C-alpha cells in the first residue's frame, strides 16, 4: 500500500496547494506518471508518482494547501488487497492547520527607572576595575581622560593619595569573607569570587572535601621517574631567548604534557557522578595553589589542551595572581576535570595526592633532582622528577593510569613538540 505525499520540490518549500488531480480513484498509474499539479510559491509544477498501482483514494481536494509530507492519495500496489478507508483522513488535520497559532500575549517588562545622566559616571573599563579593587568611589574623582572620562591614572592617583593619608591600608586579600563552597566543589558560585573566607572556614571546607574523597573514592597510586634532561634543556634554551617577563616556569611544559597525555588517555579526565564515570571532552586542569594566609585552592586553567606554552604560561600567571588576590571566576572554581599538584618547590620527592571529588584523578609532581640514571648499560647523572598519579578505581584501572604516566614520560622526552 503506498501513500502519495505532498513532495518537497525545493529546499525552501514548506507547503503546496493542489491545483488538480490528473487521476481519479480506480485509475491505474505507473511509476513516473504525472498524477497531480501542485502550486508552490514559485509556479505550478507537475508531480510524478513513484510506484505502480491503482489509485484507491484521493485525500486532498484541489485548492487545498497542505504541508510537505502530507498524504494526498492512497495508491494500492498490485500486491495489495482493496481496503476499507479506515485511515483515510491522515492528512486532513494537517490540511486545516493553516490558521496562525494564537498569539501569545506579549508582556512588556516593567521599564527600569531612568538613570539620570548626572548619576552615571563616565569611566574607562580599566579605571572601573582598578577602582573596584582598591575600594575607590568613582564619583569622588576628577576625570582627566579622553571625552572627560575617568581613566586609570585618575584612580591610581587617588590610591596614592589615600596611602599617604592613612597608614593602615588593609591588605588586598582581606576582603570580607563570603560563604563560598569548598575548593573544586561543584556548588554554584557567584560570577566572580572576591576574597577568601577566613582560614578556619577554608580549613573546614578542605576537610569536608578530602574526607569525602577518602571515604568514597577507592584510590590507587602509581608513580614513575622521568628523565627531565630534555625538557629542562629545551626550557633553558627557550628562556634564553625571552626577556624576563616572557619566561616559562618549569611547571608549564609539565602542564602541557599532562594536557596532551590526557588527550591520549581521556578516561582520566572527567568526573564520577551518579555512580557513573563521565569523561569530559574539555581538559580543564585544576592547579593546586597554596595561599599565603593558609589553605589551598585548585582553580582550573580552562581548555588547557588548546593552549600553547606561552598561552599556558600567561593563563597560569593570570590564575595564580587572581587566586592570591581573591578574584576567581566561578567557572574556574568548578570546572576542573583533573588536578595537578606540584610540591616540587618544597623539595618533596613524590606526591600521593587525594583526589578532588567528583574528579577521578590527580597528578602529583615532585622535585626535580639530580640522580644516578642508568641507560643502555651506562650510568650517568640526570635531573629526575617523580610523577605520580592518584586514580579513582571506580572510574579507571591501573592500566589507564599506567598508560597515562607512560605517555607523560614520552611527551617530556620530546619537549619541542609541546
Amino acid at each position: 500500500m503506498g501513500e502519495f505525499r505532498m513532495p518537497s520540490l525545493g529546499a525552501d518549500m514548506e507547503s503546496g496547494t493542489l491545483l488538480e488531480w490528473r487521476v481519479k480513484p480506480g485509475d491505474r498509474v505507473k511509476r513516473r506518471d504525472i498524477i497531480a499539479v501542485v502550486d508552490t510559491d514559485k509556479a505550478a509544477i507537475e508531480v510524478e508518482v513513484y510506484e505502480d498501482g491503482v489509485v484507491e483514494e484521493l485525500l486532498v481536494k484541489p485548492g487545498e494547501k497542505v504541508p510537505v509530507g502530507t498524504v494526498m492519495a492512497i495508491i494500492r500496489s498490485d500486491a495489495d488487497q482493496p481496503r476499507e478507508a479506515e485511515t483515510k483522513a491522515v492528512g486532513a488535520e494537517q490540511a486545516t492547520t493553516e490558521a496562525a497559532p494564537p498569539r501569545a500575549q506579549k508582556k512588556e517588562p516593567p521599564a527600569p527607572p531612568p538613570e539620570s545622566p548626572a548619576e552615571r559616571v563616565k569611566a574607562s573599563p580599566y579605571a572601573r576595575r582598578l577602582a573596584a579593587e582598591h575600594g575607590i568611589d568613582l564619583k569622588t574623582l576628577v576625570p582627566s581622560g579622553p571625552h572627560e572620562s575617568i581613566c586609570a591614572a585618575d584612580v591610581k592617583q587617588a590610591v596614592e593619595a589615600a596611602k599617604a593619608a592613612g597608614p593602615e591600608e588593609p591588605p588586598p586579600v582581606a576582603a570580607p569573607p563570603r560563604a563560598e563552597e569548598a575548593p573544586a566543589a561543584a556548588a554554584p558560585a557567584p560570577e566572580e569570587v572576591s576574597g577568601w573566607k577566613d582560614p578556619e572556614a577554608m580549613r573546614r571546607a578542605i576537610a569536608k572535601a578530602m574526607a569525602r574523597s577518602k571515604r568514597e573514592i577507592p584510590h590507587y597510586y602509581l608513580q614513575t621517574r622521568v628523565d627531565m634532561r630534555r625538557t629542562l634543556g629545551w626550557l633553558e634554551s627557550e628562556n634564553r631567548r625571552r626577556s624576563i617577563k616572557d619566561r616559562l616556569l618549569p611547571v608549564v611544559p609539565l602542564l602541557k604534557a599532562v594536557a596532551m597525555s590526557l588527550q591520549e588517555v581521556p578516561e582520566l579526565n572527567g568526573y564520577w557522578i551518579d555512580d557513573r564515570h563521565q569523561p569530559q571532552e574539555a581538559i580543564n586542569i585544576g592547579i593546586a595553589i597554596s595561599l599565603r594566609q593558609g589553605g589551598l585552592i585548585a582553580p582550573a586553567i580552562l581548555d588547557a589542551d588548546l593552549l600553547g606554552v606561552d598561552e599556558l604560561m600567561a593563563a597560569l600567571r593570570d590564575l595564580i595572581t587572581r587566586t592570591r588576590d581573591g578574584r576567581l571566576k566561578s567557572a574556574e572554581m568548578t570546572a576542573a576535570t583533573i588536578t595537578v599538584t606540584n610540591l616540587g618547590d618544597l623539595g618533596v620527592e613524590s606526591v600521593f595526592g587525594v583526589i578532588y571529588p567528583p574528579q577521578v584523578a590527580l597528578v602529583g609532581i615532585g622535585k626535580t633532582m639530580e640522580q644516578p640514571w642508568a641507560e643502555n648499560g651506562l650510568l650517568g647523572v640526570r635531573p629526575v622528577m617523580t610523577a605520580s598519579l592518584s586514580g579513582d578505581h571506580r572510574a579507571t584501572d591501573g592500566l589507564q593510569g599506567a598508560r597515562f604516566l607512560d605517555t607523560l614520560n614520552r611527551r617530556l622526552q620530546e619537549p619541542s613538540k609541546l
Partner: protein
Amino acid sequence: MSPSSPETMRRLTYRDAVREALAEAMRKDERVFLMGEDVGRYGGCFAASKRLLEEFGPERIRDTPLSESGFVGAGIGAALGGMRPIVEIMTVNFSLLAADQIMNTAATYLHMSGGQFNVPLVIRMATGGGRQLAAQHSHCLDGWYAHIPGIRVVSPATHEDARGMLWTALQDPDPVLIFEHSGLYNLEGELAADAGPVDIDRAKLCRPGRDISIISYSASLIKALEAAEILSAEGIEAEVIDLRSLRPLDEATFLSSVSRTHRALIVDEGWRSGSISAEISARIMEGVFFDLDAPVERLCSAEVPMPYAKHMEAAALPQVDNIVELIRIMVKTHG
C-alpha cells in the same frame, strides 16, 4: 631579534627583496613558476621579476594574456596538478576580475571536496595608494580578502618579510595571498645577508612602549613607526605592532599588548566600514574590554574612491600627522 653585525647587513629596496625571494624559490624548487601579465619580457609592472626571464626561461616566467580569471584559475589547476605556481596580479583592483576563482574555487576546493583537494597556490599582488594612480589602481583591499575562510592573507611591510614570506607561503598546502604595497617597492632598508624564510602567521611587536598600542600593517606600519618616534620625543611611548598576517589574525599578540598599554589605535589603509580595523577593534572589545582605559580608535582611508590630485589623495590616506595628533588626545592624562 639579535642585532647582526654591520658587515652581515646590506641595503636594498623592497622590490629587490621580492625579486630575490622569487629567484630563490625558483632555484630551490623546480615545481615553482611565475605567471602573470608582463612578468617576463617586460619584467613585471613593478619590476619585481626583472631579468628573471633570462635565468629561468619563458616556461617558468610565463607571460599571460590579460585574463585574470583564466590565469588565476589555471594557477589553481596547476597547483592541483602538482606544481607550485606563483600567480602575479598587477594590482589588487584587477584581482576583482579573478574574484570568482579566488573565492569560489581556491578558497572552497578543500572544503567542498571533504579534504581531498588542497590548493597550494601563491597569488601576489600590488596593493595600496599614495602614487596618484586614482580610483582604479590604488585601493587597499587586503582586509577585504581577509574575510574569506580558506585562504591566507599576508601583507609584508618590511624587507625581511618581503624576502622571507614567499618561501613559507609556497610551503603552505593552501592558497596564500601576498599583498605588496606599491608604495613600498622603492623603499630602501637593511636586510641580513643570510635573510631567509619567515613565519606567515604571527604578528610582530616592532617597537615596545607602555602608553598605547598602535596596530597596523603594510605601508601604514611605516607611518606608525614614524609617528611613534615623534611621540617618544614628547614622552609618549607607543608600542607598534605589525599584524603581518590578516588571516589568520594573531590576536594573542595585539591583545596582550593592549592589556599592557590599556589603549589601542588601529591604522588601516582600507576603508573604515566593515574593515579589518573594525574586526580588530571588535576583538579587543571581546578580549580585553576590562583593560581598556580609553575607547579604541581607528585611522582608516576616507570613504571615497581614491582621488587623483596629490593633495586630495594625501588627505584620503592615514598620515603620520594624523596618528600623532590622535594619540596625543588619547593618552592625555594628568600629565
